[in-house]
């Protein structure tokens, strides 16, 4: 690093020898002139333990886990909990959900079955495969070998549709939604050029599904010829451009031009998958994950940050361009550099962020704070539970051994539309009716009722209820509410079920706060 850069970095982030979490916090504090005065304090223990379990295992803690944490007097208990959760099987489950939704965005499982895909991701996460290596597998696998075929899901389940693949490579891996640039240079965003869009598309324009796009067992094949040309719809002269594979902002990659007659290793013929001597698609994985293509690591870091903090440093996570700058540009650069120098280690990055004060801040808005700028991290953002977290959390709240069985109905009810990002929170009538009267939730409530029915003391009921559903102890007011409800109950079990339901339907439960 040149000296001037090094000095600038030192000034900006304090002592570079400090651990990363402290440097993250320094940059976040520097992001608001009155940060120390306005910011919320650290989350209390109950808030923290629920948040950590949801973020690192995908579900809320059990009563035993909550009380163990609340009664632990060790000063390092938060760090200890973070480390143990990140090393637990729950982390694999949670990150499988995260990577699945990031990469596949709820598209239908048309070519690679869900179970095989999840098993593939689980194996990668369990061994903490570097993110760049994982993405290289995903972008280079052709689906022909049954043993490794799940890695090809990204292409196969998109049926290699050129525009869909171009859109999603640029959005998911590069943080840029170039869709507008399909027909013309983006009218208001200078960095979104039509040539960038088609430069990405040129990596895959010769690839196709063999024997055809509809076959469930289709594999990826490639031709030796075919150019990408485009015309701007704004150009009255209809000037046509031809473009070869190139990464965003980079030069076109050199292409090999095999001699005439030697274009194919396996020549096209009826029922034969052609293999070209020179493959454009084979260039993609390397070019995309190359360190000089900083958009790749930057996008990964931003997406992981958004998962944990409820908002990307670049927001939305696929809208990275010069007129939508990051909320904390130096922080995003720091995290990107560190992620690359730590060999794209996702677990390491999650752990570093988890150990920050920024992550551990309370979501309770201090009374002095009037308008909360969401991008300053003065207060922890509320994060709606994902469909999977919600399924597991409801199951856990009801004392069921596993949430696996509930994932299907919750996914179909709460997921974003296929191919669309899970955007801002909304609550739709069908979702509310599902929680209110639906058989899935009603069926789960029974086990909690049965457990509560064994308790006679109203205070014990309140303790058990709040600890199991909201992962905290009840307040005196809440204890009184429970006691009053039980006193006036004509049907005690119905009342217990109703109380449990009310806690599950509360906003406090619906959000990771």
């Amino acid at each position, binding site marked *: 690093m040149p000296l001037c850069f090094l000095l600038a970095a030192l000034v900006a982030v304090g002592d570079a020898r400090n651990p990363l979490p402290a440097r993250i916090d320094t940059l976040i504090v520097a992001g608001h002139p009155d940060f120390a005065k306005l910011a919320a304090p650290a989350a209390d223990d109950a808030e923290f333990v629920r948040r950590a379990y949801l973020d690192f295992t995908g579900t809320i803690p059990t009563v035993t886990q909550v009380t163990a944490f609340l009664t632990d007097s060790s000063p390092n208990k938060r760090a200890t909990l973070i480390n143990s959760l990140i090393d637990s099987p729950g982390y694999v489950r949670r990150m499988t959900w995260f990577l699945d939704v990031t990469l596949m965005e709820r598209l239908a499982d048309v070519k690679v079955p869900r179970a095989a895909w999840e098993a593939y991701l689980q194996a990668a996460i369990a061994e903490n495969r570097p993110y760049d290596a994982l993405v290289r597998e995903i972008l280079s696998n052709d689906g022909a070998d049954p043993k490794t075929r799940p890695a090809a899901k990204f292409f196969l389940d998109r049926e290699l549709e050129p525009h869909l693949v171009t859109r999603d490579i640029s959005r998911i891996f590069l943080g840029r939604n170039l*869709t507008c640039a399909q027909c013309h240079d983006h009218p208001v965003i200078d960095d979104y050029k039509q040539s960038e869009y088609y430069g990405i598309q040129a990596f895959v324009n010769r690839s196709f599904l063999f024997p055809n796009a509809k076959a469930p067992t289709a594999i990826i094949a490639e031709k030796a010829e075919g150019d990408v040309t485009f015309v701007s719809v704004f150009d009255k002269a209809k000037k046509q451009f031809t473009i070869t594979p190139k990464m965003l902002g980079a030069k076109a990659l050199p292409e090999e031009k095999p001699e005439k007659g030697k274009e194919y290793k396996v020549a096209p013929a009826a029922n034969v998958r052609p293999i070209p001597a020179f493959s454009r698609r084979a260039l993609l994985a390397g070019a995309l994950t190359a360190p000089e293509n900083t958009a790749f690591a930057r996008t990964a870091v931003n997406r992981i940050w958004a998962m944990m903090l409820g908002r990307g440093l670049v927001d939305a996570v696929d809208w990275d361009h010069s007129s939508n700058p990051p909320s904390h540009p130096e922080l995003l650069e720091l995290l990107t550099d560190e992620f690359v120098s730590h060999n794209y280690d996702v677990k390491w990055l999650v752990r570093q962020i988890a150990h920050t004060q920024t992550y551990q801040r309370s979501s309770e808005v201090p009374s002095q704070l009037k308008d909360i700028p969401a991008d300053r991290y003065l207060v922890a953002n509320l994060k709606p539970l994902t469909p999977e977290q919600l399924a597991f959390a409801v199951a856990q709240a009801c004392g069921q051994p596993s949430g696996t069985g509930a994932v299907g109905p919750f996914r179909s009810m709460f997921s974003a539309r296929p191919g669309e990002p899970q955007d801002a929170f909304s*609550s*739709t009538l069908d979702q509310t009716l599902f929680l209110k009267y639906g058989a899935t939730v*009603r069926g789960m409530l029974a086990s909690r009722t049965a457990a509560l029915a064994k308790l006679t003391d109203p205070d014990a009921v309140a303790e058990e209820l709040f600890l199991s559903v909201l992962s905290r102890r009840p307040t005196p007011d809440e204890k009184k*509410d429970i006691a009053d409800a039980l006193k006036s109950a004509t049907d005690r079990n119905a009342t217990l079920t109703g109380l449990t339901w009310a806690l599950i*339907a*509360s906003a406090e439960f619906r959000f990771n706060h």
Partner: protein
Amino acid sequence: MPRCTYACNTADHSVSRRSFLGTTALGTTAALGAGGFASGMANAELAKAQKRVLVIFLSGGVSQLETWDPKPNTDTGGPFKAISTSVPGTHFSELLPHTAKQAHRLAIVRSLNSVSDDHGIGAKIMLTGRKPEAGVEYPHIGAVSAKLLGRGSTAALPGHIQILPKGGGGFGNADSTFLGPKFASVSLGDGKPPADLLRPKDLSPESDAAREDFRRKLNDRFAKSRKSAATDAYSESYEQAERVVKQSDVFDIEKENPKVADRYGRHDLGRHFLLARRLLEAGVTYVKVSHSNYDTHHENFDFHIEQLGEFDSPFAALLDDLADRGMLDTTLVVVMSEMGRTPRINDRYGRDHWSKAWSVALAGCGIKGGAVVGKTNANGTAVADREIYSGHLFHTYLRAVGIDSTKNFYPNDRPIPYADPKTAAINEILA
């Protein structure tokens, strides 16, 4: 920062996902009060004045020759006669005897060219009033109606409902495009109410009310220190759900006067028409009823006897009922399809896909009853006069319900005309 202001419309982030009656619709409970729509005089008045749209979609492609534009005694006319109607000089196919008596309420367009002979594209053209274009998805007439005619956050019920012949119901349809998920259709498969609308039997009304009270109390406490647009939207969605639940009888045609129900008929289409009327009466802005299936590549004539036999009398009953209730003046009724059928009769006595010269019928709000516009040639193989595109119809629908169809929507600040600016309303059939 507008995400994209010209010539592309992915709406990727411009609207949050399928928030049917979502965040923007939330936030007001007051206007209707707990009793919902039917509770007060003011609301009844409001309902009367509210314009509504009912589309009857004869799915698969209905034959214009067996309905609105008969050509008896020609090489293409088929075996059926033309019969006179309540409008002197206007004839319908003899398969529509009851509808013929309603002709004075109907305006017929006989010169429609809908451009595509494909079911999916044809349906899109007819429901959006445009040919498909790269880079922009236009909203369906149902979403446009719900958006422009709906009562917004005061509505207890969804504004855009489609009743399908069978299958499951569902939310989150993609037909509202850039207008946002709030205006997307809610499907009622076989007219069944939305899932989980009815309180389960093992939950007493008292227990339900008690648990709702406690939920509200918990939310109020949580909101003291963690109030946000998202938590408000979540809390409010339960109030919204309660309003719809209170109106759940609207979805139940068993609650209808049996004499009225008999007039509609007790078969599927009769039930679906009756449900449509109940929904419109309760304040739903747009209802589409689909009748399946008119795709008669084989045995066109037998199938049209059956299909139109189901359609004819309930449709006439529906128009009478709307008129009796004073709703026809405020309800635009359109009978359309994704295409017509070939004048040429194929060797299986079928008619194939045909978009070049066919007919639709309109009635009610803003429509000049008895009007006929456009003409086909003697055997129906081409438009002879006043060629109409789906864009003309789209303008006409909007004008009929009192909307200036030349205005624009502005998704992401980009102007998108309500209706195709290359076309205009069909003034001859507007009242």
